[in-house]
């Protein structure tokens, strides 16, 4: 029996490209439907390629669940900006928002699949990170 979506870990996708972020989100939805909260952000404040802390904070807020959110990122700036965004969260949320070291598309799909089964944040993160070479 799956838990309701509001109780599952949420998924945030942060890419340098809005198209990549949206496309990855489409693939997540195809896999898990509406059973997890999902938000994506891509591009810089001017609409070009890049990442934007304000956009990441808004996506974290949109995907927020009491179980926390797992954040999937592409290249370095997405990771650094996501870590910065997590530090800007209030203390309760900060402990429940994690950046996963995983490929963005595969990581988002597998993390969401794990989250849809009701797994806690650390298991969702761990499952996504098993995709990365150690």
């Amino acid at each position, binding site marked *: 029996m799956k838990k309701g979506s509001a109780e599952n870990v949420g998924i945030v996708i942060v890419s340098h490209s809005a198209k990549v972020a949206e496309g990855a989100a489409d693939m997540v939805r195809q896999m898990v439907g509406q059973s997890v909260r999902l938000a994506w952000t891509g591009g810089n404040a001017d609409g070009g390629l890049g990442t934007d802390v304000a956009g990441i904070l808004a996506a974290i807020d949109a995907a927020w669940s009491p179980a926390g959110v797992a954040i999937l990122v592409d290249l370095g*700036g997405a990771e650094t900006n996501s870590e910065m965004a997590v530090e800007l969260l209030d203390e309760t949320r900060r402990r429940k928002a994690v950046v996963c070291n995983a490929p963005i598309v595969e990581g988002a799909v597998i993390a969401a699949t794990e989250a849809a089964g009701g797994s806690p944040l650390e298991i969702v993160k761990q499952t996504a990170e098993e995709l990365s070479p150690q």
Partner: protein
Amino acid sequence: MMDAGRQKHLILAVTDAIIAHAEELTALDQAIGDGDHGVNMKRGFEAVRADADNLAMKPLPDMLKALGMHLVMKVGGASGPLFGTLFMSLARDMPADPSLAEAGAALGHAIEAVKARGKSSVGQKTMLDVLAPLQAELANVDSDNVGPRFKRAAAEAAQATAPMKAIRGRASYLGDRSIGHMDPGARSVWLIADAICDALATPVPNEERP
């Protein structure tokens, strides 16, 4: 003596330097990265410049913190959190009217914060390769000639990143091909250090006073 006029003079000098060199920074980044450093830094420092009057009225630590937050929110790219963290963590240990030694100690702590943010260390062809020698200069103050020495140290340290091989950031994808180009983040620190020295050495123009 640090007051609102001097602080605004510093903000204008630093933001003007970055904005004026945005194309050069972009060209450096195009050589070994994704080519967005100049336009990103310009976006962030324009936001700082637009808020210069408000920032300058704050005590120095509060000003640095607010300035860093502008960079975090506006720069985008990895430079936003990295330069934002630099200024925000400088704020943590900076007295309102610091001695050079106190500024050096604050810079030391800020360097540690930048290392943690970028998961990087000195010698990897980054902004740290200019920040660390500058901190050493401040820790070793023994003459009245600090400004020129500081400026020379910044220039030499930034230029010394050219023969380095990038270990962190997008430039590291190029491996040995990153050798021979100055690091754009190092150039930005050089520009900022130069502007700070010039602004501390010149009187505050009346028309700049907030």
